[in-house]
């Protein structure tokens, strides 16, 4: 199979859906001639024109709200927020408008939109451009939340998100944009349903539950342990809301040991929810040890590269957690 990058996979999903559905418009800062801050929308202005690829002023609140208003009136907008940290500037429109519109009006209208934004550290962009804020949006009923870890998943999940009739927050990973992976040819219209976890590595001795950039790191950890004869299962949840609870519970029952890994700060992070899903279920009775969480340190992301690398989970810190359970 051919290999393309994560950024190219997202571009293909956007472009293929836009070719099929005239109702899709795409708004964001510098997505036109510039091609997006991370190059995701390169070539799209040339193909779809200014009417559908809308370069916006630096007004996150207005462009997010404009997407909500357009979604309420027959279009299917996609918004790019340049860094997920800037969702803070659009929070009212996302939380009080997009998420609540359908419910508060008694189901009179849908809000079919996707808000794409890259998150995560590792680029030296420091405190205000490196956060992982997914837990915030997972806490708001009415929103769906997706974080893909491979080019294949990115394309299939984004297509599902764009066909969904709800507001979907699609959190991309800055450090994954340039990684390559196998993706079917453009003619192959595959989609990955939201709410279905993916077992990225099957195993029998311990389950690591993770998502986003940390999937790679957990797979690396699992390979290291394989040489010691420890067989680790790595589950990529892919979609945080809706969550594949059954998939997590089944794996926990199988292995009896669970480590949860995410880059976001540990306190109040989504790992707490993942852990609760397991201990609230019959899987509790199959656990041989406490569930371990490995999250980011409870600090803002620092600038210095040495510090930056150490405040998020590493193969070493994940391995230590695994070893505690063996």
């Amino acid at each position, binding site marked *: 199979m051919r290999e393309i990058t994560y950024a190219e996979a997202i571009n293909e999903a956007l472009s293929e859906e836009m070719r099929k559905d005239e109702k899709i*418009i795409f708004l964001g800062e510098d997505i036109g001639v510039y091609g997006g801050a991370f190059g995701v929308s390169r070539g799209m202005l040339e193909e779809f024109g200014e*009417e559908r690829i*809308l370069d*916006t*002023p630096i*007004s996150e*609140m*207005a*462009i*997010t*709200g*404009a*997407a*909500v*208003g*357009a*979604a*309420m*009136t*027959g*279009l299917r*907008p996609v918004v790019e927020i340049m860094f997920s940290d800037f969702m803070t500037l659009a929070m*009212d*429109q996302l939380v*009080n*408008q997009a998420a*609540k*519109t*359908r*419910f*508060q*009006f*008694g*189901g*009179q*209208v*849908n809000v*079919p939109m996707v808000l794409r934004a890259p998150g995560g550290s590792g680029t030296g962009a420091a405190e205000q451009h490196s956060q992982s804020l997914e837990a915030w949006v997972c806490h708001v*009923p*009415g929103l*769906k939340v997706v974080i893909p870890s491979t080019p294949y998943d990115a394309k299939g999940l984004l297509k599902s998100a764009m066909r969904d*009739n*709800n507001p979907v927050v699609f959190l991309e990973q800055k450090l994954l944009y340039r990684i390559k992976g196998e993706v079917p040819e453009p003619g192959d219209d595959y989609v990955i349903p939201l709410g279905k976890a993916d077992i990225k590595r099957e195993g029998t001795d311990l389950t690591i539950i993770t998502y986003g950039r940390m999937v790679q790191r957990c797979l690396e950890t699992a390979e290291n342990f394989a040489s010691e004869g420890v067989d680790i299962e790595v589950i990529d949840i892919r979609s945080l809301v809706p969550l594949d609870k059954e998939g997590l519970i089944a794996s926990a029952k199988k292995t009896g040991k669970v480590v949860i890994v995410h880059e976001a700060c540990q306190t109040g992070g989504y790992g707490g929810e993942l852990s609760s899903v397991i201990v609230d279920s019959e899987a509790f009775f199959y656990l041989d040890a406490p569930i371990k969480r490995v999250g980011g340190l409870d600090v803002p992301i620092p600038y210095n590269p040495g510090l930056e690398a150490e405040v998020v989970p590493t193969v070493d810190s994940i391995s230590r957690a695994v070893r505690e359970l063996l």
Partner: protein
Amino acid sequence: MKVNKKKHLDMYLKMVQTRKFEERAAKLFVQGKVHGTAHFCIGEEATGIGVCSALEEEDYILQTHRGHNQGIGKNMDIKLMMAEFLGKETGYCKGKGGCMHIADFSKGSLGANGIVGGGLPLAVGAALSQKYQKKKNITVGFFGDGAANEGTFHESLNLASIWDLPVLFVCTNNYYGMSNHISKAMNINDIAVRADSYGIRGLSIDGNDLLKVYEETIKARKYVLEQGPMLLVLNTYRWMGHSKSDPQAYRTKKEVEEWKKKCPIKRYSKYLLENKIASQEELTDLDEKAVRDIDAAVEFAENSPEPRIENIFDDVYAD
């Protein structure tokens, strides 16, 4: 501008219906029949009725939290409004939204908003939709003087301007953001001058003059379709407190009494009588009809079932 008698009487009736709706709503509070809150527009009826009466059916409006006049102006069903106010299953939003979040998409009301200025970006998006779909319609984004200091106001006017969208931004300036007088909230006397900053047209008029509001909106609608967004400021006054729990320590009774003398309904009925457009008998008939409509709405609402918790997850997500 020539306005036919039917239109005159329709606008008069809608103003009276709004007044009676809210007077009855206030009474239901006193009687302990309503849980929650409401924001009354008594004294401001001419704004929403005048603007919406000048719109086409397929034009959109984004309402404010103080928008019963806007909804009735856009032909919303008073029974369903009252049922929503009482939180009933038969209400516009199945009792989930209350009157701060009321909408009728079939009539072009894209909803009231509980966030000050929250509807303005939505209005920009709805207008973007209209332009993209090549419709010959406009979107009205209602907001108050308080919202003119929110970031959404500035971002939305700018975005509508650079994209040349068919939005009419309508500010109902009632001089108070809850308790804060406009003179303490901005250093300008006329909100309409803010339009200049975004390269769009601004106009400020007497918001208690129904016919003026109606006529200027007819002109503004044409302008917006042909030349792009515009800001229309309607200067008016709310007679009641901000919400049901407002002791109104921030203003004098004298000030309120002075504004009551400028009642938009009395002013319009005087105009209709003096110009022999309608007889006193015709107006009295409409007054009585409005009361009957509200009576019927309350009866409908009170006899409607409560929403059931079994259905609470409906409408959180669409299929």
